[in-house]
């Protein structure tokens, strides 16, 4: 299925705001409730921040790609990079809560490497508040969420 939105940007911190606004437009168009949209934006912000901070060496600017699709009662957002992906970093400036936060906000989070040597974080959000069954995709780790912080 072709996503409703594919957005490719330089992986810079200031571009995360563009992703957030784009998701806002998508949510507005499909009538996603504001509280759910806030959760989605926060989780995607974390995934994009991981790309900005961890994916590429400091002297290299790479791309950050965000795909978003709304299909019935689910919204799927995928964040990709072509760098190192997510890996432990002793000098990480963050608190290390990003993955936990994503898992808490989404119903399903899948981390993995794609066929084009990219790293991919795929988050699925239920739009009707109903928790769904987990699926395990080959080669991917699946984290289970609880559909929002509230």
């Amino acid at each position, binding site marked *: 299925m072709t996503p409703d939105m594919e957005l*490719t940007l330089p992986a810079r911190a200031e571009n995360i705001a563009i992703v957030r*606004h784009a998701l806002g*437009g*998508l949510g507005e168009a499909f009538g996603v409730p504001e509280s759910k949209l806030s959760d989605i934006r926060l989780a995607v912000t974390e995934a994009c921040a991981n790309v900005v901070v961890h994916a590429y060496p400091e002297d290299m600017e790479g791309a950050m790609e965000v795909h978003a699709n709304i299909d019935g009662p689910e919204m799927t957002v995928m964040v990709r990079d072509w760098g190192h992906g997510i890996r432990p970093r002793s000098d990480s400036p963050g608190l290390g809560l990003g993955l936990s936060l994503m898992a808490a906000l989404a119903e399903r989070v899948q981390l993995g490497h794609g066929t084009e040597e990219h790293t991919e974080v795929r988050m699925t959000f239920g739009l009707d508040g109903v928790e769904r069954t987990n699926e395990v995709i080959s080669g991917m780790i699946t984290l289970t969420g609880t559909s929002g912080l509230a």
Partner: protein
Amino acid sequence: MNGPTTREYEPKATSAVNRLRLASGPALGPVLCRVVSMVLTRADWPVDRLEEAMLVCDALCAHGPRHANNGHLTFSMHADESEAEMRVYEFEREDAEALLRDTSLPVVGNVLEQVADRVSVVSDEDDPERVQIVIALSAS
């Protein structure tokens, strides 16, 4: 002199979206307008020119889907403090020309040509069978 009464010159960063591909559905207008307004705002464009850029987005969203390839429209945009360029991709040449014709209004004329400094249709280097619409805007 006390306090920061003068503002030191700071070079503005360019702002860019490498690729934005949107389905020709209800999200086309809201997403395109938000992304373009963010890119231009970050490039420090004045509000009146930003509003005119929204007219360009509105015209593309109103008429683009009729001529879109595979039900999607693909854009790229970059801007600095003085100029911006938006490209719309993946058109057959006749579809691109028809889209530009469609954006003409009685009395007003062609909205894109009225607002933009330059509107052109150029061949796509990656796909010789496709063309791009290039819309150049200036901040002043």
